[in-house]
């Protein structure tokens, strides 16, 4: 049993605040929820929504069906007719007629509470009542949320009480009752992808964050800025993305664990700096939160179009790592690991997300941290002091040179974006240039040891194989499990470690499939091109989107089914 609630209205009407309250209330009631957001690039007006799935069981994929529509604007009231069912209920002011509108007097109750501004709270409380919940948990959350605004708090509490004091029953509501699980707290969190990435960075030891605002990456920069005092992290707003990536390089050189977050356009500006990081061999974590391009594209919407751009970005050849979390839990873990990998191998590591994953929220047990690495890979001042000389680019079997930070000893640390010798000084020597190029190539090979196995749910032999990457994980899992429940026997390979790869690890399952179906949220199916190169097989079918809207479970189920049956 699951209930799908869509809160829709104009930008500036507090949709995300309302959805946040509802999601957290569900979480504190020991229920589970998953929400994704659809917003226009504007501050006021338009049509935005947050769609919340709620259940007694964990769930996380994108759905479109609407059981309860909370309409905060007239446009929202009529925009989603085809997503409603016979049983759907609509929460909206009485003056907006709709055949499914519940009789609750939204406008009147808000007026009684003292302000039209609380109609959002009246609507949420009404939805809460439809779910059969008692007001207590929602009341606590409203108290927490409006704690600093006494007058506003009083009006909101009054609104909540008016909804629940009303003896009026809501016809059809019983169908959507979600009995709360045991009332003892589980400590679960209500958390978004961008928050999980930010927490992951904290767990990975980030000490320096810089960036230039760009949706959908900005939220990560904002989170870090909000937490910087408690965490003792330096958060610097750069004058442009070129400055940001060069600041990452400068901070990293000075021994910080440094990161930036941007989207495709900003990353385009960073590309020369990426090449610099490759040449001088410094760690960096770059969160690339994708959105549709080219150019400005659809600023507030989602896409997975930058995989091959990131793989090939930068002039010259140098090692880099590309990882792509599939869900909010992986956002935390993989971002934390990114910092360790970056420093151990002295490479830029990309954490590729997208608007869908960044802005989705879910109910989640607190992240485990016990397994995360706690080491640093910088030479200690003691170890440095015992050296007679230090060469930043000393050649080693692995291609990774011991890393010293400037100021930690009497040795100086010399790095150069020109080709350089082992000491870091500019060189024109043909022999040294060749040796250094080889060193960087060797490091790329060594780096493969850090790779993890991608998620494969098989067996593959002779079966259709669905391959996806990144943010489609949960939606795809659910679609594939529906196919398997029908007896269709479909395997699912989901890539979260994309580069560098031991090709055999990708090639083996891909080659073993009866039919190769690629699911990639891009205009040209970039994952298909990747598999042609890495796994030497062209996809038999590519399921893609070009409109910036996320895949839904129903959509993928239907499209995959058609491909599999064929």
């Amino acid at each position, binding site marked *: 049993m699951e209930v799908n609630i869509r809160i829709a209205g104009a930008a500036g009407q507090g949709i995300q605040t309302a959805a946040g309250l509802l999601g957290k209330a569900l979480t504190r009631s020991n229920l589970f929820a998953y929400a994704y957001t659809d917003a226009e690039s504007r501050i006021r007006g338009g049509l935005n929504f947050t769609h919340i799935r709620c259940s007694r069981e964990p769930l996380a994929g994108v759905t479109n069906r609407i059981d309860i529509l909370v309409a905060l604007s007239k446009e929202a009231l009529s925009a989603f007719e085809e997503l409603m069912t016979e049983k759907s209920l609509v929460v909206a002011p009485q003056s907006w007629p709709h055949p499914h509108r519940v009789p609750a007097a939204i406008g009147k109750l808000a007026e009684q509470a003292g302000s039209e501004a609380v109609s959002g709270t009246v609507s949420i409380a009404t939805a809460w009542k439809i779910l059969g919940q008692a007001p207590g948990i929602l009341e606590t959350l409203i108290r927490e949320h409006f704690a600093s605004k006494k007058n506003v708090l009083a009006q909101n509490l009054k609104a909540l009480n008016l909804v629940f004091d009303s003896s009026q029953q809501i016809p059809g509501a019983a169908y959507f009752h979600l009995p709360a699980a045991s009332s003892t707290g589980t400590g679960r*969190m209500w958390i978004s992808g961008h928050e999980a990435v930010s927490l992951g960075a904290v767990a*990975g030891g980030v*000490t320096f964050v810089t960036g230039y605002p760009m949706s959908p990456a900005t939220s990560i920069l904002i989170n870090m800025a909000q937490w910087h005092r408690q965490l003792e992290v330096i958060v610097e707003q750069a004058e442009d993305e070129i*400055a940001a990536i060069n600041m990452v390089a400068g901070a990293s050189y000075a021994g910080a664990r440094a990161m930036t977050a941007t989207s495709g356009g900003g990353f385009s500006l960073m590309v020369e700096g990426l090449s610099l990081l490759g040449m001088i061999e410094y760690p960096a974590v770059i969160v690339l939160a994708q959105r549709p391009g080219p150019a400005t594209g659809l600023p507030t919407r989602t896409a997975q179009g930058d995989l091959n751009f990131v793989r090939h970005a930068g002039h010259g050849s140098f090692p880099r790592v590309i990882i792509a979390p599939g869900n909010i839990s992986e956002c935390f873990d993989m971002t934390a690991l990114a910092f360790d990998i970056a420093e151990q191998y002295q490479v830029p590591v990309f954490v590729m997300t997208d608007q869908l994953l960044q802005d989705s929220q879910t109910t989640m047990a607190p992240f485990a941290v016990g397994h995360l*690495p*706690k080491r640093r890979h910088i030479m200690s001042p003691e170890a440095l002091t015992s050296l007679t000389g230090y060469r930043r680019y000393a050649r080693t079997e692995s291609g990774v040179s011991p890393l010293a*930070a400037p*100021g930690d000893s009497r040795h*100086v640390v010399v790095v150069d974006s020109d080709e350089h010798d082992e000491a870091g000084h500019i060189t024109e020597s043909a022999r040294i240039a060749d040796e250094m190029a080889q060193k960087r190539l060797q490091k790329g090979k060594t780096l493969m040891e850090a790779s993890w196995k991608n998620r494969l749910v098989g067996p593959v032999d002779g079966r259709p194989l669905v391959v996806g990457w990144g943010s489609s994980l949960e939606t795809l899992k659910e679609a594939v499990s529906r196919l398997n429940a029908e007896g269709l026997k479909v395997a699912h390979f989901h890539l979260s470690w994309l580069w560098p790869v031991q090709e055999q690890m990708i090639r083996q399952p891909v080659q073993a499939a009866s039919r190769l179906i690629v699911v990639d949220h891009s205009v040209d199916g970039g994952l298909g091109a990747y598999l042609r190169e890495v796994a030497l097989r062209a996809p038999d079918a590519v399921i893609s989107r070009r409109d910036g809207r996320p895949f839904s479970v129903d959509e993928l189920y239907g499209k995959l089914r058609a491909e599999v049956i064929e």
Partner: protein
Amino acid sequence: MSDIKAFDNDVDIAWCPGCGNFPILGAVKQALAGLDLLPHQVLICTGIGQAPKLPHYMQVNTFNGLHGREVAVAVAAKLAAPDLTVLVHAGDGGAYAEGGNHFLHAIRRNIDITLVVHDNHYFALTKAQASPTTSQGVVTRFNPEGVAAMPLNPLALAISQSCAFVGQATSARPDHLADLLMKAIAHKGFSFINVLQPCVSWDHVRTYEYYRERCYEPGSDYDASDRLKAMELVTRAEERYPVGVIYTQQRPEYSDQTTSHVTLPLRRREVNPDAAVSLFSRFQ
């Protein structure tokens, strides 16, 4: 005063014989030794060009990065490691063309680094294209009809934005430059020195002799804290160049305002995954 020889190294120097960079290199070593600094306590950030090769030719921590991005690198390195004395050496191309935006924002931030621009009015390493400070009408292979755009006045720009320390010097007077460098480095905040530098390969007008004749120190009654007087000094229409401290003022330093809560330097920070756990309650 530390031993100036500690800053020497034996890297082969790729500058032209007699290059205006040589006196600057000497003056930098002289200033650092004069401030009792040791090579490992100093970081020099540079980009690409002839001037940016400077740190290779001395014993010092060196970040020789991309053209025009040297200031951004230095800002971050100083934030992360405030115990380092951070200098930036750039040419007029890197500092005023490719890196113009970073220059503006470094003035705004007022972080405690020293920017030294080797201003020879050309992109010299790429064979004498016009830079932002090339005079109007100068013919180059890239500007066969002569440069049409007006030259930038970097001193006026910096003064107009209340840059905390603005100085000018010339390669033709290295002792004066060393003295000015010591003042700039000692000044807490963003310090900027424009160094008028002869280019022995491309410019046969502005020679050492030319600068020795035309550079002058404003009189002892000159008040470097008066912004309007400073502006008047650097915008006079004459072929003479004021040198020394042109403008200075005390402004709050950037790290003092932004990182006083942070345990520094960042290179000593441990990794503590439990720090994330302390934030979980916000989401519960």
